């Protein structure tokens, strides 16, 4: 029988790190809340019958954002056989808040007291034995990062799950009164003897009024159809479930009522009305609302436990994190530091360290070593001319052009992995929230954007932590404006070939992306479909920690490998196709590129792009192939411009590129390719997040349209000011600029009807 164990806990408590350790997988981890947005399944190493579920982090079982709902509905409705609740030991109080709720589900829980090393370092002490007794569940001290204790936690969870399964089949289960404490203070320990099923978790004790209300609610719903089955033993620990449900109903949790099958029957509705009366009576008596009563009750309960079990040196003491924060989120320095960091990332990856590596690979490896070697080999074999062409001019020129940028990408991936792991991400969101809000986005939108710097697909998925639908959609639409890893070769190519020695071109691509996001934010926010209240910004700022070299390297290798794989598959296929189309004419005769099928097609498409300054058919074709994967842009250039050159004299195709583009046109080309619709994979991700075809089409159309407008403005205005004379193109560019200015500065936002303003704050403060 398969046993399912869920890893649940607060965001950023180390669930995925432990999951990777236990299953041998390599899911992405990072130091900011919300790295995992989908549940992932894996099998426990050494115990193939045990399935582990890694869940997105949650602070409570009353979730708000889409990825948190995944966790809750899994825990509540699918009911795993056991839960490993990962608790950040350096932050016990808030983490145990979720624990109290997990214990109520009636599913056996093992608490993994994670990052115990951090606690030991600060000199805090946790009395684990006492905490075990107070919570009524087993605790294992772990340090998932170093793999300490994880296996033990998993084994305990498996044992509990098996134990529970036995209890369920015997159906001898009854709620045991002596496992319940009235106050946290006098927890009696008799129930924790070795023989008793240790999953009879203790539960939060609320005040007498609340307990009485919960009892009445429990007896009201106990006999209802769907609930009755569960309580009577269809699921493990049905009584606990009843208690959990009673609390949820007391809190007016509509989702829980629906899941329990109460909301839609006549009988259920009558009961809900009864419950409403009970709840209101308690609220009147305690002069507070039911949600507050329950949350306060839980936190008071935990505070009591923590007071007895955790000795903290000084709660408000300045830690190293705080000292770093003093500088990094300093009022004056924060923004310059952020700009400096991003500039450095690009400067190091594209212009300096990465470029040296790339130069070597391009000049030496793919410039002479590989083609010469292969050419000699082919000559020795005496292969057909067309095959030589395919291999040398097609595959090596195309795939080589892409692989050539690997050093730069690896450097970028290292730097990004470092940024993600050290804890700076959440700070950037904190610093930029004010700016982003002005532009219609939330500071939280910045995390998808930064993740998107590596690859747009996880970037788009990272937007799931944004609670408001509008803000999330807008983030999904704009995230790919930021140059991803696959666009890096385009930047590096243009910067290297047409702007040699310039240090502003590569970083400018990044800031062009930011500019596009901000401008789009303002414009889109004014449309009716995006109007409404902004996402709240209630966000945890995790402590900094120095990323482990192993972790950073692993992330780099994984992403690098994914890149190489794409080069070997999608890019390879595309280059072969491009080579074929550019080597033959319609009567299947091998011809000069300029007479090929591709030239004929390309010429037709190129007309569209000629106002942008790059009406050359090769550039047009490269842009189109870029939709399949952005690496193809460079690959296609490699095939089309590098034709025969590579094999003959080892020269790269850069000189040909310089001949085909003016720097201005090249920059316009770069701008268009950075901003237009992302690759198919990312468009697929947009579609998954939007869950709607029309939204997806709108997003893609907007991205392409915006890219066209910006690229046209860059080229036409650049030409006008460069002394190119006033043309129709200049006039169009000016019209575009005026439209943008009007959209940004003068168009009135769609007015939200007063009644729809879903704000907790008084209307005057919102306005």
């Amino acid at each position, binding site marked *: 029988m398969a046993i399912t164990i869920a890893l649940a806990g607060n965001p950023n408590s180390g669930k995925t790190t432990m999951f990777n350790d236990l299953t041998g997988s390599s899911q992405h981890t990072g130091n900011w809340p919300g790295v995992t947005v989908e549940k992932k399944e894996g099998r426990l190493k050494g115990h193939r019958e045990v399935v582990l579920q890694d869940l997105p982090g949650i602070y409570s079982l009353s979730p708000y954002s889409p990825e948190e709902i995944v966790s809750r509905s899994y825990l509540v409705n699918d009911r795993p056989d056991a839960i490993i609740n990962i608790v950040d030991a350096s932050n016990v*109080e808030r983490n145990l*808040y979720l624990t109290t709720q997990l214990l109520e589900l009636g599913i056996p829980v093992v608490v993994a007291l994670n990052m115990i090393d951090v606690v030991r370092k600060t000199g805090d002490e946790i009395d684990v034995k006492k905490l075990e007794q107070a919570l009524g569940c087993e605790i294992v001290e772990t340090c998932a990062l170093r793999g300490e204790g994880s296996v033990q936690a998993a084994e305990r969870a498996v044992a509990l799950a098996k134990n529970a399964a036995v209890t369920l089949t015997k159906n001898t289960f009854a709620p045991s009164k002596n496992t319940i404490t009235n106050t946290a203070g006098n927890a009696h320990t008799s129930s924790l003897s070795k023989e008793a099923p240790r999953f009879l978790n203790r539960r939060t004790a609320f005040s007498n009024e609340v307990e009485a209300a919960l009892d009445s609610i429990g007896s009201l719903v106990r006999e209802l159809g769907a609930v009755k089955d569960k309580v009577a033993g269809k699921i493990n620990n049905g009584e606990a479930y009843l208690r959990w449900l009673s609390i949820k109903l007391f809190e007016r949790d509509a989702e829980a009522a629906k899941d329990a099958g109460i909301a839609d029957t006549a009988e259920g509705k009558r009961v809900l009305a009864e419950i409403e009366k009970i709840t209101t009576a308690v609220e009147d008596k305690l002069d507070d609302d039911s949600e507050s009563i329950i*949350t306060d009750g839980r936190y008071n309960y935990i505070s009591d436990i923590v007071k007895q079990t955790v000795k903290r040196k000084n709660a408000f003491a300045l830690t190293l994190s705080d000292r770093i924060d003093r500088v990094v989120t300093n009022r004056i320095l924060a923004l310059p530091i952020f700009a400096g960091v991003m500039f450095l990332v690009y400067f190091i990856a594209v212009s300096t360290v990465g470029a040296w590596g790339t130069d070597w690979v391009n000049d030496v490896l793919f410039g002479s070593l590989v083609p010469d070697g292969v050419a000699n080999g082919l000559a020795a074999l005496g292969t057909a001319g067309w095959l030589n062409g395919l291999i040398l001019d097609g595959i090596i020129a195309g795939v080589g052009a892409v692989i050539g940028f690997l050093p730069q990408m690896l450097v970028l991936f290292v730097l990004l992995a470092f940024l993600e792991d050290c804890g700076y991400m959440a700070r950037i969101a*904190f610093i930029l929230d004010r700016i982003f*809000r002005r532009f219609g986005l939330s500071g939280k939108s910045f995390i998808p954007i930064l993740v998107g710097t590596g690859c747009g697909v996880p970037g788009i998925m990272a937007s799931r932590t944004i609670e408001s639908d509008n803000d999330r959609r807008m983030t999904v639409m704009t995230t790919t404006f930021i140059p991803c890893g696959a666009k890096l070769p385009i930047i590096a190519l243009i910067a290297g070939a047409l702007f040699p020695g310039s240090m502003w071109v590569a970083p400018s691509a990044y800031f062009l992306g930011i500019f596009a996001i901000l401008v789009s934010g303002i414009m889109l926010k004014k449309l009716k479909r995006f109007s409404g209240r902004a996402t*709240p910004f*209630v966000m945890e700022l995790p402590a900094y920690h120095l990323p482990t070299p192993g972790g950073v390297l692993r992330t780099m290798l994984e992403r690098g490998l994914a890149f190489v794989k794409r080069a070997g598959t999608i890019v390879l296929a595309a280059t072969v196709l491009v080579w074929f189309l550019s080597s033959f004419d319609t009567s299947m005769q091998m011809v000069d590129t300029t007479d090929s099928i591709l030239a004929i097609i390309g010429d037709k498409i190129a007309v569209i792009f000629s106002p942008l300054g790059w009406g050359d058919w090769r550039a047009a074709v490269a842009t189109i192939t870029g939709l399949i994967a952005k690496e193809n842009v460079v690959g296609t250039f490699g095939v089309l411009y590098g034709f025969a050159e590579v094999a003959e004299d080892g020269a790269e195709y850069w000189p040909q590129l310089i001949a085909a583009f003016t720097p201005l046109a090249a920059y316009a080309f770069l701008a268009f390719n950075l901003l237009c619709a992302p690759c198919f994979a990312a468009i697929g991700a947009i579609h998954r997040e939007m869950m709607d075809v029309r939204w997806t089409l709108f997003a893609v159309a907007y991205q392409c349209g915006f890219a066209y407008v910006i690229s046209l403005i860059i080229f036409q205005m650049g030409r006008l000011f460069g002394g190119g004379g006033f043309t129709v193109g200049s006039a169009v560019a000016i019209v575009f600029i005026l439209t943008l200015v009007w959209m940004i500065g003068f168009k009135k936002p769609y007015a939200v009807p007063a009644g729809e303003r879903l704000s*907790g704050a008084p209307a005057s403060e919102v306005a």
Partner: protein
Amino acid sequence: MKTLRETTNGDRVTVVKVHGEGPVRRRIMDMGVTKGAEVLIRKVAPLGDPVEINVRGYELSLRKDDAGMIEVI
């Protein structure tokens, strides 16, 4: 009524009540800002919003609008 909005850097206050309604309020409470919780105001972001507070031993950031819902003494 004094709220978290009116506090300044370095203030140490105690939460009296979280006003307002809806999911944002619930989230704030779930994060540990509940009646009786001690809060230290750490800092204000470079552009005046949001604020960073220390509550229950960790750092939390909130917008000023939301901080205005939290009554403190």
